[in-house]
């Protein structure tokens, strides 16, 4: 039954892709064999990250960290002796603009590889173009998980990895009754599903869950409902500037329950922006924050130092910035391994299993790109914020991507797919 429904879903996906292709007359010259094989021609990297509009707060560090990696690589002699050039317009947090600029990056600028977008909505906006052109694409935001697409390398941590880091810790520390609040869109809904999955895996139970519109800024009733349910801890997947108000309002209302999150602090650095103690006793499950105590990160001359040397006025070095940074290096390794920037060959090289000593990994360890799923087995951290808004690491371990590899059996080395799986598929697989 479950297998059949998945097949049916795949069939629909393929049919859609075919319709899309049927309409594509010639398509333009991007894709597989774009760049020259040899010589000193520069490599062109497309970086579409928001520097204005709603997502600028989280998008700007991504842009800056990418440029840092590129500058470092260029100074060290480039990739296979070729310098890197950047095409980096500002999509202004506007999905339509993303669509236009993605088309332009591929067809006009002929980029060899593309980094683009913060939100899942942006990724889904441009994915049809990416797949039509078979463009090598890195999506670096922490996200709901489940994208199994031979053109997409979703190298940020997934909800299952982030929540899987923090939720078991909180169950151990505080108890088994969970109350979930999540932003009312795909990311929030799917993350809430993952909370349920992880709760049952860890012997906990979700008392209730509430989805909050992205435009909401008034959390009085939410706080009252949490108080009524009286959970041992809250899981919060609230996102965006509006939802930040929750943390200030819950502090003001005197709600002192511990909160686990995959979204707060690491991306929008709420612990730096909000007045203490709004973020007190909040636990973030993340692969990276500016504060994580690894030698590659915080030692003299480490990642943090280099970043702020290049961008002295930057406010914070966030989770996605690090992902952009290390994935540029992973791309470099793959090109060197493939000996070409031919996109299909670079994809194959990436699929062969690249590892890299990213700032998130402690000294002596590396993180691994899983070729089958195009995801990364991240080194995950549980970061606790105290009432002075100091952040400390309370736990860390490697958490591999499990859902695509373990549950739905996505293997892009064997079969090219362009799908996004959801926790629904998890239940179906689990029977």
């Amino acid at each position, binding site marked *: 039954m479950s297998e059949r429904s998945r097949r049916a879903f795949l069939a*629909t996906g393929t*049919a*859609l892709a075919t*319709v*899309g292709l*049927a*309409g*594509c*007359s*010639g*398509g*333009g010259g991007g894709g597989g064999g774009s760049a020259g094989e040899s010589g000193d021609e520069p490599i062109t990297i497309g970086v579409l990250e928001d*520097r*204005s509009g709603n997502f600028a707060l989280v998008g700007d560090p991504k842009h800056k960290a990418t440029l840092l990696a590129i500058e470092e690589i260029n100074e060290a002699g480039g990739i296979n002796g070729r310098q890197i050039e950047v095409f*980096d*317009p*500002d*999509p*202004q947090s*506007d*999905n*339509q*603009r993303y*669509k*236009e*600029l993605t*088309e*332009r990056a591929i*067809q*006009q600028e002929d980029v060899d590889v593309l980094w683009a977008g913060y*939100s*899942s*909505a942006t990724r*889904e*906006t441009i*994915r*049809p173009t990416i797949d039509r052109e078979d463009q090598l694409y890195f999506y670096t935001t922490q996200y709901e998980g489940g994208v199994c697409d031979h053109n997409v390398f979703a190298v940020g941590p997934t909800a299952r990895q982030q929540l899987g880091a923090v939720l078991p810790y909180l169950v151990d520390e505080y108890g088994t009754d969970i109350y979930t609040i999540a932003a*009312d*869109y*795909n*990311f*929030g*809904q799917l993350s809430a599903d993952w909370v349920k999955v992880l709760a049952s895996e860890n012997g906990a139970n979700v008392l209730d869950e509430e*989805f909050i*519109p*992205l*435009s909401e800024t008034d959390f009085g009733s939410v706080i009252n409902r949490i108080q009524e349910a009286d959970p041992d801890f809250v899981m919060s997947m609230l996102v965006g500037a509006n939802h930040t108000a929750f943390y200030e309002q819950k502090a003001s209302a005197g709600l002192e329950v511990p909160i686990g999150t995959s979204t707060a602090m690491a991306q929008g650095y709420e612990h730096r922006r909000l007045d203490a103690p709004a973020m007190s006793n909040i636990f973030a499950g993340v692969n990276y924050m500016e504060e994580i105590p690894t030698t590659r990160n915080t030692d003299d001359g480490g990642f943090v130092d280099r970043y702020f040397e290049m961008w002295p006025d930057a406010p914070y070095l966030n989770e996605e910035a690090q992902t952009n940074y290390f994935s540029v290096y992973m791309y470099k390794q793959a090109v060197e391994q493939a000996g070409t920037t031919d996109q299909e060959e670079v994809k194959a090289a990436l699929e062969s299993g690249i590892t890299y000593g990213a700032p998130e990994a402690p000294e002596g360890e590396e993180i691994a790109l899983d070729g089958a799923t195009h995801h990364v087995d991240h080194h995950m951290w549980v970061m606790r914020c105290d009432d002075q808004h100091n952040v400390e690491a309370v736990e860390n371990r490697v958490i591999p991507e499990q859902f695509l590899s373990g549950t739905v059996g996505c293997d892009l080395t064997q079969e090219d797919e362009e799908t996004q799986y959801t926790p629904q598929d998890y239940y179906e697989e689990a029977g």
Partner: protein
Amino acid sequence: MTSPYERLFGRFEGPNTIGNTRVFWAGLTVALALAAAYPLVVSAYTAGNTALFMLYGLLAMSLSLVWGYAGVLSFGQVVFFGFAGYTFGIVSINLGSTLGVTMAIPVAVLVATVVAFLLGYFMFYGDVSGVFVAIITLVVTLVMQTFMAQTAGDEWTIGEVPLGGFNGMPGIPNLAVGTEGAAVSFSGASFYWLVLTILVVSYLGLRLLVNGRFGYAMVAVREDEDRVEMLGYDIRRVKLVVFTLGGGLAGLSGVLYASWGNYIDPSVYSLAFATLPVVWVTVGGRESLLGGVLATVAIEWFRQQLAITGSAWATVVVGTLLLIVVLALPEGIVPFVHRKTVGFVEGRRMVGEDTPAADREGTAE
């Protein structure tokens, strides 16, 4: 005695449109020929990109009609645009065949038209007028944005297609006409030609309309509602018809939009996008059907170029230029240029006919 010229163009001409000369039609023909040849000399990307600006031009034209000609201050053309885009996605993905795509086009335009009719009926027959129309249509836009952003859950699935909430609806097919086996599908250059054709047909159709009997009624409603009413017209009906028609046109534009990007999301209902048609038409000249289209293409091209520079000042520049145009050229660029050049003589004649001095004095006394 009518000359061949008059037989051919007479019904397209009148005081309600700019460009009533042989020179204009000759120029338009040349311009169209150049526009049609454009995809042959540029890349598929550029053609597709320009097609996007042109389909926005259709949206602008729908606003020129309701605002410029009938004086209805609609801020909600994007509502019909969005309804049609979403409907096209829902129907075409559900049916999943070329025939399905073909059928989705009229269904989507119809839905947009019906939505416009219902909204128009309730406003105009509720005696809402003037700036209140603007604010109500604006509120409908904002309400749609808030609502559509909240449709992420499984319960918001129509057939097999989830509305998708904030993430929007991906996988919308390209436009196609025909049945399986005998179909024309539009993308790249062919999509460009399709949009150009629709734009030209709509333009000529609207010229017929505004220079006909109903067109005079529309313009009269804009100029002086009370007097039109005394002449025996039902102004509510006139407004409703124009508003509905404008909704249909905006809907057609929305269908083109959804199939252009194979995608639609709630940002089509955002304040920023809702304001764009007003911006285009204000800059181009609201009483010129062509002005809005030209301004749309120019403004969108310019905005995109600014985005490509990646400059932090991009939106500041756009805002400032817009402000300058609104303040310095209240009538819009195209009517201004027209008045300063070819329309000088013609324009004087028209003003004279439109508002005779004695007429004004009569009102004043």
